[in-house]
């Protein structure tokens, strides 16, 4: 049950359109002009400090936890140091009307933005990358064959050392940096870089403290003018909290929440970051919760829940503005702010506590997209906690994501963690397990390779049939291939070559980031950076990796299986006929398409052969990529994750040997191609686990869909739990479950082929939804809608 305050805040969230504002842009531009000339880290720190000294102090009605990234509610900042002012200007009228992730811009803000942006012409990371990125890589990117990260974004994805922040306060960091400076008389360039970094840390740390104190003044100002005695007291408490944290260690649960939020929102003021995680929240917050709620009973559990929900709603306020292409590839304003609960302690015992449950309860109450809950499950995780997560899933929340400690620990160790650090693993990014303790930097997406294009390159000897240009490797005329091994070898050559190009491009981007864009505050609170005197961009974190990903992995495996079966084994069609069929998008050749769709086995049906192909290909990528170093001394890590990039990558990809039509989206992340998993969720789960996930250091993102009928009632919770446990027993790392909704069924009616696997299940009866009469489908749609309203 939401308290009236939380209900109001939540209502406001749902009723407010995000907005782009000018304030940070204007302040940053002033500061850029003023402070240019300082060493890069110090210069950048002074710019941010200038913002913190001058930005609007916004405290809104009902708030208990305060601090915003901009001068308005749900505001987004422009960061023309990273993103090119050219598209900010050209798209400015489209932002509010575009279909994907629109933003409101007021006429006054628009005017200020347009007045300010000319200064930034050609200065953004994005502009620089356009100049230096090798032409061939740029062409591959603009054709959506590969995608290289860091070109217009920051090396963000910070999951910081919250425990230390809450233990020593930001003041503790300042003292540590000052001590390091005092003890060093630079004799080399490296020494001087360290001193500059520490000085920059101090400037930015002071900037946050300044902002907190300004917020305290604003709270006091509002309190003085407030007639409502209850709110007045709340404002005075807020003011008192802002005077304590984040400068000093918090004394109460509420102050600890405030400290966590100040640090978090600062990441979003500092740079245009995303995927900043809350880490193991139920661990570092536990001492404060235990003291206030359990031991001293200063607040009730309900009061703690309300404060927590206030902080959750704050996490819904931050944004990263993306251009049209990225708004499609990462659709739905995603921010990947993951909050981890459960799991085990560094010494291998159950780590969960009452706060773990409270965290899930808050998410269950709010049903907002952020923060995203991650429930770690180990051998001793209490049944009650798991069942609560399953109940949320059953209700169609698709939250929390469930994570398998056993597999994730292996991944975290492969990233360099000790056993203790690995058991303390946390998410850096969206599902990627990294050694815990806030000392791991998994730089954001190094890149994606479009597997659909790799298949097209093999079928056309390196030529992209979409453009007619020779873009890939010349791996020979496939009509001359004698067996499927030759076909697979050609694919492997193409795939390895293109990941290699991403490495080239990404190492280049990283090098530029090192010299121009060290992110000072996020580095300071990441373990290892203050100690080493290096930002995360320079490899200062204890553990450093960069993630490479894939789109269309299932299409790849299915296509290989189709070529193997229909061309080489059964000789139903020749390679030439296959190529022709794909080139013409199966026009007039629907029968061949049906053959390719139905005869060869498809990934997702617990078929050991095609699952083996999937495993072979993905491990081939992982084995190569994970042996490569990045520019800052870390290594690349590989995972199966496509976000929604499978859609733009699908748009440019022609018909494939698996029967997929031209332009259709590629498969989603580690899930089977849509409509190809015909044997139900247990078979799908087995297939996804069969890839042997642990060696894929970035994990595998698995969305599973259930018909609500199949998981209804008390037994439905058992069923969901059973599916998750079996997936984990088979080595799966991550699963999130979507209980199918009415809209999906309607879509299945419109486009039956994409939903072929959608089973309607009733006692002793089975039928494919798409094989039923329309009237029968309508019945199901009607009743399912009814059921889902419970």
């Amino acid at each position: 049950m939401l308290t009236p305050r939380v209900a109001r805040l939540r209502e406001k969230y749902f009723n407010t359109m995000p907005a782009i504002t000018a304030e940070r842009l204007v302040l940053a531009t002033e500061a850029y002009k003023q402070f240019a000339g300082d060493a890069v880290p110090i210069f950048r720190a002074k710019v941010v400090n200038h913002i913190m000294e001058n930005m609007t102090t916004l405290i809104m009605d009902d708030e208990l936890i305060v601090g915003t990234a901009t001068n308005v509610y749900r505001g987004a900042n422009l960061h023309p140091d990273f993103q090119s002012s050219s598209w900010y200007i050209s798209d400015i009228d489209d932002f509010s009307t575009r279909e994907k992730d629109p933003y409101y811009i007021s006429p006054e803000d628009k005017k200020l933005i347009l007045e300010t942006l000319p200064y930034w012409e050609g200065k953004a990371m994005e502009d620089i990358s356009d100049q230096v990125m090798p032409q061939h890589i740029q062409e591959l990117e603009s054709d959506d064959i590969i995608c290289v990260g860091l070109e217009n974004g920051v090396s963000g994805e910070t999951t910081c050392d919250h425990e230390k922040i809450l233990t020593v306060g930001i003041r503790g960091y300042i003292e540590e940096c000052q001590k390091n400076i005092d003890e060093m008389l630079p004799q080399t360039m490296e020494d001087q870089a360290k001193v500059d970094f520490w000085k920059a840390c101090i400037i930015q740390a002071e900037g946050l403290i300044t902002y907190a104190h300004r917020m305290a003044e604003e709270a006091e100002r509002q309190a003085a003018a407030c007639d409502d005695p209850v709110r007045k007291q709340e404002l005075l408490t807020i003011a008192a909290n802002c005077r304590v944290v984040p400068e000093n260690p918090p004394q109460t649960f509420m102050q600890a929440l405030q400290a966590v939020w100040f640090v978090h929102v600062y990441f979003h003021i500092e740079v245009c970051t995303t995927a900043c995680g809350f880490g193991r929240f139920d661990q570092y917050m536990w001492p404060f919760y235990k003291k206030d709620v359990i031991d001293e009973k200063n607040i009730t559990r309900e009061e703690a829940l309300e404060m927590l929900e206030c902080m959750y709603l704050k996490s819904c306020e931050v944004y990263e503005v993306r251009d049209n292409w990225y708004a499609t590839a990462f659709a739905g304003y995603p921010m990947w702010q993951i909050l981890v609960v459960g799991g085990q302690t560094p010494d291998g015992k159950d780590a969960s506590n009452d706060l773990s449950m409270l965290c899930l309860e808050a998410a269950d109450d709010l049903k907002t997209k952020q923060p995203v809950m991650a429930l770690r499950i180990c051998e001793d995780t209490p049944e009650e906690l798991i069942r609560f997560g399953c109940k949320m899933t059953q209700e169609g929340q698709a939250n929390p994501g469930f994570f398998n400690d056993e597999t994730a620990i292996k991944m975290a160790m492969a990233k360099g963690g000790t056993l203790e650090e690995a058991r303390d693993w946390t998410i850096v990014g969206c599902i990627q397990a990294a050694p815990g303790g806030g000392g791991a930097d998994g730089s954001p997406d190094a890149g994606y390779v479009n597997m659909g294009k790799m298949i097209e390159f093999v079928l056309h000897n390196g030529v992209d049939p979409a453009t007619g240009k020779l873009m890939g490797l010349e791996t020979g005329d496939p009509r001359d291939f004698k067996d499927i091994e030759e076909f697979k070898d050609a694919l492997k050559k193409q795939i390895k070559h293109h990941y290699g190009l991403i490495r080239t491009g990404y190492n280049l981007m990283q090098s530029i980031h090192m010299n121009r864009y060290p992110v000072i505050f996020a580095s300071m609170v990441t373990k290892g950076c203050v100690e080493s005197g290096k930002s995360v961009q320079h490899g200062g974190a204890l553990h450093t990796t960069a993630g490479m990903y894939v789109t269309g992995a299932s299409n790849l495996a299915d296509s290989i299986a189709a070529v193997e079966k229909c061309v080489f084994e059964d000789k139903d069609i020749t390679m030439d006929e296959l190529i022709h069929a794909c080139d013409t998008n199966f026009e007039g050749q629907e029968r061949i398409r049906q053959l390719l769709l139905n005869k060869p086995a498809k990934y997702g049906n617990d078929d050991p052969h095609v699952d083996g192909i999937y495993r072979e290909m993905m491990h081939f990528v992982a084995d190569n990529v994970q042996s490569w170093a990045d520019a800052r001394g870390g290594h690349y890590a590989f995972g199966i994750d496509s976000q929604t990039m499978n859609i733009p990558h699908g748009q440019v990809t022609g018909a494939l040997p698996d029967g997929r039509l031209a332009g259709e989206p590629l498969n989603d992340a580690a899930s089977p191609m849509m409509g190809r998993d015909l044997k139900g969720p247990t078979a799908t789960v087995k297939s996804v686990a069969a890839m042997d996930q642990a060696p894929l250091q970035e994990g595998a993102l698995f969305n599973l869909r259930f018909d609500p009928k199949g998981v209804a009632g008390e037994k439905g919770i058992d069923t969901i739990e059973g599916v998750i446990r079996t997936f984990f027993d088979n080595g799966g790392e991550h699963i999130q479950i979507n209980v199918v909704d009415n809209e999906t069924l309607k879509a299945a009616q419109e486009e039956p082929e994409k939903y072929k696997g959608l089973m309607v299940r009733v006692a002793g009866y089975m039928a494919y939804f798409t094989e039923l009469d329309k009237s029968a489908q309508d019945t199901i749609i009607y009743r399912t809608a009814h059921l889902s309203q419970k």
Partner: protein
Amino acid sequence: MIYQNGDIELFVGNIQKFSVEDGPGIRTTVFLKGCPLRCAWCHNPEMIRADQQIMASRANCIGCGSCIKECHLGAIEMTEEGIAIDRETCDLCMECTKVCFAEALRPVAKKMLVSDVMEVVLQDKGFYDNTGGGLTISGGEVLMQAVGAETLIREAAKEGIGVCLDTSGYGDPRRLMALASHENVTDILYDIKSIDDEVHQKFTGVSNRQIFENLRMLCEKPKLREKITVRMPLIGGVNDGPSLIRQTAELCERLGIGKVTLLPYHDLGVSKARNTGTQQEIFSPPGEERLQEICDEFEARGIKPEILGRV
């Protein structure tokens, strides 16, 4: 057919994984084709006949005409509504299904060795273990392939897999007793269509005498009685009347049966009947109020009712 190595053939209509309403936990249901009953409302009408049939799903048809060319009897034609098979002429050679890449024409069932069935069943062992699930043998009527079913039960026992039988109860009592008595048969879903024999004969084509004798026989043994859940398809105006339900509830009480599952009628069998070349009458389920009364009737006698099978 029984092979020298003891393997035996089953005529399998389908193997459905992730069955969650056919016994406890997550189960794999093996549907055996062939049933002695002819229930007018049958929800798996393609499983009734013991011989092979062709399922023709017009929704899948791409109109390529390959089947028409392939048919050596000229039994397939393209009509305005789509492909149509002259079932009188068709000799079930199945050649058309082999050239139908769109799977608009497919055999309803296939012969499978018990060992092949077990291979599929074993794929989901992990799910059974985590949810208390297992194998369900359904149909059709399991007693029509009792020898094969018994082999399947034995093989499941070797793998530590529990079995649930879904039966009409119509068949040889010795065979039923033999199947039901296996240690690893944990659940028996026993259908009661109508306690009134006149109604039973009219709507299922057979007398219910054998069914109730078999039920009494099982219930005499406490260990078997405990396994039983009575299942009642509820067809509005046919078998949901007060006296019929009361008598059924009284009988269950007398026999010491603790659980009943109520399956309100749905018409999803109609399309499948049409696709296999037969017609099915459309009925209606009991109203919600009546359904509740039926639940109460059982509950009052200490029998736990559960409504399943709602679409």
